[in-house]
């Protein structure tokens, strides 16, 4: 590889901050202990390191450290929260409310719950990607045990009205769970302030290592319990057994401490770069559309559709130099375009034409300027190749054509 890869796929995963890597290293060899070994110094050192990390993580989201359950990542945390609540509160009810734009970890866990006799309501979103609060409230029944709404969307960066959702849940005595994977460490996230009782998040989206995540479980008013999905040893207050990933947890803790210090300034810097990128592309390229709310959006994300260009092909014009994601079907095995963008009301054609730019701590202004140049070049190249672009330019009504579906 000649030049440095410009990495704009931070919503997929972030590079581990070197400071987090450095903090982890002693816990691989020098301090080999199992945090559950209570009878020797190696075990005590590991336990102490885990305690420190738990405090750092709890401190970032303003909760008690006893409310942090370590897991292998946000997917496991989502599963533990949804399946765990479903089993634990079976006597109270069997109904869960979520939204169509949730991450697959939530949607697939909900599908599993349905197979086990649960009822799930999937709320639609509007063209900005936001759920309707009245629809949410109307969906609550006396059988509803859980509302699960993500803090910020992974594809569009759209932030849901957490405080309002929390108020509705509190009014009806329903537990409120949130997948906050994309929000924690990047914007202020305070679950107690907005009435979230369970919250899933992960280290590798906030510059910590992969393979470690957490579930916040509210301890008081109400005391929330989840049925464990992993048994064997009763670690993590019986909610998640398994030897703790000590180096991973130490790195996660360090990443949380760094985020608490730096995320305020970092968010301002990234919003500036993101706006520069979005404005730059929109100015050069006609028929470009930003997907989702720009008002309620994460500072480091923009999702743009370039009409009459297919996303994966477009990415191939620059993917030796720039890493990012597309909502195009062709990037997935399913051949279906992004269900999140389709839920916003985008036609399949615009969903196929989308790129997601997610900036991060290590993104520079030079990266952004090079990206504007190369993406614009790619879009123009692909449009020169596109028969639909040619028709559009000739004034043909593309929607009126009878396409051969295949």
């Amino acid at each position, binding site marked *: 590889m000649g030049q440095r890869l410009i990495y704009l796929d931070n919503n997929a995963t972030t590079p581990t901050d070197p400071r987090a890597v450095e903090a982890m290293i002693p816990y691989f060899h020098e301090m080999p202990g199992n945090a559950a070994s209570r009878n020797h110094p190696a075990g005590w050192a590991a336990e102490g390191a885990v305690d420190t990390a738990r405090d750092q993580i709890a401190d970032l989201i303003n909760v008690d450290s006893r409310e942090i359950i370590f897991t292998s990542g946000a997917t496991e945390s989502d599963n533990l929260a949804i399946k765990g609540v479903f089993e634990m509160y079976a006597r109270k009810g069997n109904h869960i409310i979520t939204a169509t734009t949730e991450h697959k970890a939530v949607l697939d866990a909900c599908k599993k719950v349905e197979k086990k006799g649960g009822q799930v309501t999937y709320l639609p979103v509007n063209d900005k990607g936001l759920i309707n609060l009245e629809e949410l409230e109307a969906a609550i029944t006396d059988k509803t045990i859980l509302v699960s709404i993500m803090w910020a969307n992974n594809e569009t960066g759209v932030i849901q009205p957490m405080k309002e959702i929390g108020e509705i849940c509190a009014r009806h005595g329903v537990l409120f769970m949130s997948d906050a994977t994309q929000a924690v460490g990047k914007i202020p996230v305070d679950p107690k302030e907005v009435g979230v009782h369970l919250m899933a998040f992960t280290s590798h989206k906030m510059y910590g290592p992969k393979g470690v995540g957490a579930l916040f479980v509210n301890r008081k008013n109400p005391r929330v319990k989840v049925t464990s999905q992993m048994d064997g040893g009763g670690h993590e207050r019986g909610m998640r057994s398994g030897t703790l990933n000590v180096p991973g947890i130490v790195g996660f803790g360090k990443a949380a401490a760094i985020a608490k210090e730096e995320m305020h300034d970092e968010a301002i810097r990234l919003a500036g770069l993101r706006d520069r990128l979005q404005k730059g592309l929109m100015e050069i390229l006609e028929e470009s559309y930003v997907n989702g709310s720009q008002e309620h959006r994460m500072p480091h994300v923009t999702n743009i559709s370039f009409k009459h260009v297919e996303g994966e092909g477009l990415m191939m014009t620059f993917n030796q130099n720039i890493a990012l994601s597309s909502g195009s079907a062709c990037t997935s095995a399913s051949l279906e375009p992004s269900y999140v963008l389709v839920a916003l009301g985008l036609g399949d*054609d615009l969903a196929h034409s989308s790129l997601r730019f997610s900036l991060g701590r290590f993104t520079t202004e030079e990266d952004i300027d090079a990206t504007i140049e190369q993406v614009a070049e790619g879009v123009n190249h692909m449009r020169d190749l*596109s028969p639909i672009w040619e028709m559009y330019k000739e004034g043909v009504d593309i929607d009126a054509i009878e*396409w*051969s579906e*295949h």
Partner: protein
Amino acid sequence: MAYSDKLLDHFKNPRNVGTLDKNSATVGTGLVGAPECGDVMRLQIEVDPITKKITEAKFKTFGCGSAIASSSLATEWLKGKSVDEALAIDNMAIVEELALPPVKIHCSVLAEDAIKGAIKDYQEKNGLEVTATVGAH
């Protein structure tokens, strides 16, 4: 997903991009796929009225890299062939030549359909017996 050098070459340097006059009697146009499905191919051939050979082939494709490479390759193969020879082009030959991964086989199917569509249009325009069937897969 790592693509073959041949595929990347056709993607980066697509052959025969362009448009022929779709109203000309010697030109056949195949337009297949749908924007909703993420790929649309337009493939055009020009047939010499005397020799009945394909003298020119052009394409434009909206789609992924494999779709663009498949249609570029198809235009390369079409030039110099008779209509009957062109009808014998099988999508699996494209799959093999470009080393398309399994999830991209539909791109080669689309290219074969585009060839057949172009021939069908040419045959219909000229009152010939239509021997091309599109979407036989």
